[in-house]
């Protein structure tokens, strides 16, 4: 009997080892995106774009570009008020108090509904996105403090053109860029497209455009569309700066996700495992005790006979 058990165990070990080796062979090599996981539970890609320095702490993702006088900060504020969270996060980074936002809107993304607020305080341009989730509010910010120009990031839902025969929704990317500009400038300011370069690659619609406004400003916009949302980086400087900042903030913002807090389900699972094992072992123990009692009774009766 013991030899049989040992043989069975050996066969099983060999089976498991063979399956594990097979799994290793079958595993596909996927490109790895380095991620920063904050202790507060959010995740963002680590920026590997040229000029960006990773200065993260345990709680916050911080990317600094000294050439462009720009910072991208992702943090979690312990409040369920999104505006208060933006104020708190910004106060931790600048000495200047925030004024009325240039843009204050909400945008529904795959990660949730974000509050979007843009500010210009002294020479600092601030684009902030806040998402209330769990016990706090996650804030993604782009801060740029070059005195010669401003940079803001705007996200809007692209207008819908219609649906294809397959049921896919078709969106108007150019209309999305115009809507982003309207959102930023306000409905009273008119703008005219002066130049546009299509940078669409790998299925991600991208464009670099110049506009002049009726107020006499020249604006450069770097925009990308993903999932029916147009992300536009609007600046009054050159296209290269707009593109570098736009790519950086969009990499961080689009790659943002929250690790769900589901520990309670894990504890429930472990409790159930303990319960089932307890029932099995307990039932065997009870049956053993009962058999022992019966055995004693039978032996007692047998002795009386």
């Amino acid at each position, binding site marked *: *009997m013991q030899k049989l058990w040992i043989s069975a165990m050996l066969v*099983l070990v060999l089976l498991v080892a063979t399956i594990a080796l097979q799994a290793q062979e079958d595993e596909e090599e996927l490109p790895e995106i380095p991620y920063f996981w904050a202790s507060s539970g959010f995740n963002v890609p680590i920026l590997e774009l040229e000029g960006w320095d990773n200065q993260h702490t345990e709680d916050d993702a911080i990317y600094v570009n000294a050439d462009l006088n720009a910072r991208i900060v992702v943090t979690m504020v312990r409040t369920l008020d999104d505006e208060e969270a933006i104020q708190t996060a910004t106060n931790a980074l600048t000495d200047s108090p925030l004024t009325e936002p240039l843009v204050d809107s909400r945008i529904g993304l795959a990660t949730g509904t974000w509050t979007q607020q843009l500010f210009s305080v002294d020479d600092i341009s601030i684009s902030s996105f806040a998402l209330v989730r769990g016990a706090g509010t996650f804030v993604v910010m782009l801060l740029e403090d070059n005195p010669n120009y401003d940079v803001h990031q705007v996200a809007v839902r692209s207008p819908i053109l219609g649906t294809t025969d397959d049921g896919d929704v078709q969106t108007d990317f150019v209309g999305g860029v115009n809507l982003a500009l309207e959102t930023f400038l306000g409905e009273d300011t008119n703008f005219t497209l002066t130049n546009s370069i299509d940078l669409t690659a790998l299925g991600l619609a991208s464009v670099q455009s110049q506009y002049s406004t009726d107020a006499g400003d020249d604006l450069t916009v770097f925009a990308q569309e993903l999932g029916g949302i147009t992300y536009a980086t609007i600046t009054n400087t050159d296209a290269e700066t707009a593109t570098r900042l736009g790519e950086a903030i969009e990499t961080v913002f689009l790659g943002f*996700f929250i690790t769900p807090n589901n*520990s309670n389900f894990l504890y429930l699972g472990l409790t159930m*495992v303990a319960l089932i094992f307890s029932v099995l072992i307990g039932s*065997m*123990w009870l049956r053993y005790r009962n058999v022992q009692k019966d055995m004693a009774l039978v032996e007692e009766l*047998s002795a009386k006979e």
Partner: protein
Amino acid sequence: MATFAVDKTKNTIRLTAMPKVLQGLTVITVLGLIVTLYLGYFNAGTDIQQGEIQRIFYIHMPTFFGAFTAFGATVLGGMLYLAKRDDKWDRLAVAGVEVGLALALINLITGSIWARPIWNTWWTWDPRLTSAAIMALTYAAYLMLRSGIDNLQTRRRFASVYGILAFSTVILTLVIIRIRPDTIHPVVIGASPQNAQGSFEATRGVVLALLPSLLFYSTIVPITLMWYRIRLENMLDVLEQKKIALLSEG
């Protein structure tokens, strides 16, 4: 259960002290439980997409293979009983079903608890989930039907045949994710025809937690538990023999 054990003579049982191998296995089982829990819950990193619930996977999948081992023992016991008519093989078969059913239930329940935060539902009639539920119900029916037959020899014959046939549900559960393209159950080992939802990345920490758990739950746990269950069945048979002897004396 430290004072009784195994038979040596065909179709008669005597109770002996607990074998040292079983004592050793018991210690290994307790230690293995602690080590696998440590590897899965402290050493392996948190899955950043699924969160802490992913750790349940270090029990969920290995218990299925534990059930596979136990139900495999039932097939072996059933076949050898039918061939040799030796009662010890029937005891192996029933031990395999009882232990395998407990492990299959752990597999089903932990899977359901994992699915709630990941799939947003406790249960869905996915091919893999359905086949796993059928498997558990089939073996639960084995125990109920077995206890419903009074004649010992008929019960053992019936149980042996049933135990062998019931293993088809285990095979079905094992292979269904590879033949049904509409399953959403993750395929952890090897390639699959579909895009599973809630898949697992086999990082070093995951492998380090999973492989020992897999070996532990698929070998040590079912073997130790089945051994104890066989000893209990031995005792029940001894009791039965003593009752018969007492009645015949009377």
